[in-house]
């Protein structure tokens, strides 16, 4: 180290070099970069599986793949996109941005941070490896319902252990974020001055710590049911397959907020910047996010209205679900009110953010429809559900991630991205994703079931339109990769401020920021956030 220190003496910014910089990293920016690159790779792996699905569904009848493989594509697509793409992208952003937003030198527990990341490639090696062993990958759906999932072949223990492994990574990541935010804030960075992205991530971290261990418990029970003769989900021994669904969705519903809350945070950063106004209703945003998080633990059975719950259960979970619309509505109205009479410009991050507000709201409304017990009996397990969660997760979470990438790329790389290409990427994505998912509402309402590789002929036209939208969306994401690589390699130099209307500590640092962000705690005043 001594020679290196001398070589870089006047930088005071010595970085480890070579492969060890990445393998042994304790630096939040490097780890954040690894998370983001990993998420992008997984986005394309999961995306190529989606392409297989849409190709198969292009026409009725079996065209390209056998049903077993189709089902494993559906299953692994979901697991890869949730645990490999959206969550790691969110953690990557948290790693990069939280320390520089709160004026910290790094994450609170840097070594554990690196372990959280390095688990991911190994966990996905376990999961994706199953596609190449006898009997193929898991094909019982990402929700892993017994008894179907217990019929999985040799892939089964790998699936379970991959889920355990990913859970370890998520819990460690969440603990780290909580310790960072509560312990590493610069003087003056009071809780109610935290940027909303930080707030949404802290709340997400609580959700992770409370829900991931429950998933670990559920899949452990699956494992012992299959290999050690237990009867958790076997009615013949007094258990109940529906018990799995209860435990799974006790994790699963907070999980969907784990995917979307960081996106809410991103949008709450971007809209004020490009509307050049402070966020409308900051405190109400914080409380709304916390309310959504708390409510998320009391709504799980709205995923299981058709399993034969007692009527009191159906009613309770319906009303609790309706209740979530209130804080979510608060957020949507606050974003709209932030834009009201703002001096708006429409750079790529803002375009994605506005599209998020509109399209996420569509997904939110179809969610309300699904939350109404009696109508859910018609929608359950149809393409309406598929349309719903892709509106909230693709045009919701993924659009927010794209927005964040354009918003912060100049900060990360020190160069401006190609705005013209980014706008083309936006319009292609926005149009293609609606062509892809909007017709699926009609398919679902007409009764097309999900997770089946074939369908009856009256669904043919909408499926063909949907597939064309799917291919267009898939191809247009390659443009994103090109824009990112081009930006990393060079371009117009970015200033520290980057965006005229941006506020917060991260914009006081150079672009790119020094290897160790703050060597001394910065003083945070209210003026820093003011317009």
């Amino acid at each position, binding site marked *: 180290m001594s020679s290196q*220190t001398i070589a870089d003496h006047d930088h*005071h910014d*010595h970085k480890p070099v070579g492969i*060890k*910089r990445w*393998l*042994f*990293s304790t630096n939040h920016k490097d780890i954040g970069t690894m998370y983001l690159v990993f998420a992008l790779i997984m986005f394309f792996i999961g995306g190529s599986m989606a392409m297989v699905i849409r190709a198969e569904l292009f026409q009725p009848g079996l065209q390209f793949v056998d049903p077993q493989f189709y089902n494993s594509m559906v299953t692994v697509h979901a697991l890869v996109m949730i645990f490999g793409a959206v969550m790691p992208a969110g953690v990557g952003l948290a790693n990069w941005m939280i320390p520089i937003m709160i004026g910290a*030198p790094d994450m609170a*527990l*840097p*070594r*554990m941070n*690196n*372990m959280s990341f*390095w*688990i991911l490639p190994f966990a996905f*090696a*376990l999961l994706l490896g199953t596609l190449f062993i006898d009997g193929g990958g898991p094909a019982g759906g990402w929700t892993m319902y017994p008894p179907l999932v217990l019929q999985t072949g040799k892939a089964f*223990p*790998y699936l379970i*252990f991959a889920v*355990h*492994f990913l859970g*370890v990574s998520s819990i460690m990541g*969440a*603990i*780290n974020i*909580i*310790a*960072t935010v509560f*312990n*590493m804030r610069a003087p003056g960075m009071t809780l109610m001055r935290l940027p909303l992205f930080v707030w949404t991530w802290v709340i997400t971290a609580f959700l992770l*710590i*409370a*829900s*991931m*261990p*429950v998933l*670990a*418990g559920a899949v452990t029970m699956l*494992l*012992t*049911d299959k290999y*050690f*003769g*237990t*009867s*958790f989900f076997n*009615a*013949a*021994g*007094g*258990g*109940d397959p529906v*018990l799995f669904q209860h435990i799974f969705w006790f994790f699963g519903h907070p999980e969907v907020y784990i995917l979307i809350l960081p996106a809410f945070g991103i949008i709450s950063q971007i809209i004020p910047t490009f509307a050049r106004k402070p966020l409308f209703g900051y405190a109400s945003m914080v409380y709304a996010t916390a309310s959504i998080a708390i409510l998320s633990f009391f709504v799980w059975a709205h995923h299981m209205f058709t399993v034969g719950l*007692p009527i009191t259960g159906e009613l309770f979970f319906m009303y609790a679900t309706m209740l979530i619309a209130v804080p979510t509505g608060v957020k949507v109205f606050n974003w709209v009110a932030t834009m009201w009479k703002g001096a708006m410009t429409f750079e790529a991050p803002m375009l994605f953010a506005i599209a998020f507000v509109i399209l996420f709201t569509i997904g939110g409304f179809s969610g309300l429809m699904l939350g109404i017990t009696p109508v859910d009996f018609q929608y359950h397990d149809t393409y309406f559900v598929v349309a719903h969660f892709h509106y909230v997760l693709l045009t919701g979470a993924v659009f927010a991630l794209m927005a964040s990438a354009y918003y912060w790329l100049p900060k990360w790389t020190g160069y401006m991205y190609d705005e013209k290409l980014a706008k083309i990427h936006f319009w292609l994505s926005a149009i293609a994703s609606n062509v892809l998912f909007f017709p699926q509402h009609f398919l679902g309402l007409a009764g097309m079931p999900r997770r089946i590789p074939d369908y009856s002929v009256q669904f043919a036209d909408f499926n063909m339109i949907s597939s064309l939208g799917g291919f267009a969306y898939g191809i247009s994401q390659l443009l994103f990769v090109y824009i990112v690589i081009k930006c990393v390699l060079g371009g117009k130099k970015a200033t520290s401020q980057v965006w005229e209307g941006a506020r917060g500590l991260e914009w006081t640092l150079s672009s790119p920021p020094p290897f*160790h962000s703050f*060597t*001394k705690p910065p003083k945070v005043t209210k003026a820093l956030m003011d317009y």
Partner: protein
Amino acid sequence: MVSKDIYFIPEPSKWPIVASLALFTTFIGGAMLLNQSSNGKYVLILGAMGIIYMFAGWFSSVISESLSGSYNRQVDVSFRMGMGWFIFSEVMFFAAFFGALFYARVLSVPWLSGEGHGVATHQFLWPAFKAAWPMSVMPNPASFTAYKDTIPATGIPAINTLLLLTSGVTITFAHWALKKVQRNHLCAWLAATVLLGALFVYLQAGEYHHAYSELNLKLSSGIYGSTFFLLTGFHGFHVTMGAVMILAILFRSLKGHFTKNDHFAFEAVAWYWHFVDVVWLGLFIFVYWL
């Protein structure tokens, strides 16, 4: 270089990636074993050795950083938050199994015997089934062998409750001794805690043996056996881990690592021990007693 009096950032470390690799190997070994592959056990052992190597190496580097005075108050608080939330995540892991227990007792078993909206289920599936807890006759008795009896709360479980509660007291005495800088007392109380923990595990293992060999109560004894063995088994595993942690703390105390004001590792282990204790009380009440 980040100034140490303000911030502490550890140097790049190989341990995180060693940990990931070791866990990966362990999982592959476990999966191979479950898939009846004869080489699985070697991979599993390799992975387990990797995990032990990683723990030893990672902790010894943390200990030497701590002893060299690299840590400041802020690092201490980060560690405390980390341990606290880790224990909370463990609580949620147990919550899943307690949830399964309550669901079976209160809902699924009564439904199978026709209560509530389970009338049709009862008539079409196993009309002869009558709900009971402990449930020694399964809904479908043909695919299970009945067990003779369950383990009553009186006897060994009551003794074990006493042992664990006492161990919670002894570790507190150890903490008081540490604060009064009485190293001999500290070590003695820690040793007593380890012994109590070990005795607990020994008696619990004896109970398992008794259940399997004489009572015919097994993991495969329907939902009662499933919840009984997984809840008590995961708890027993946690007690074992906790006892190993206290043993490590005992060795560190013998070497004089802890000072009156600076002994986070001790406190973390003590918190963990109390957590294990509280889980046991839940088990004793809901698994053995009620």
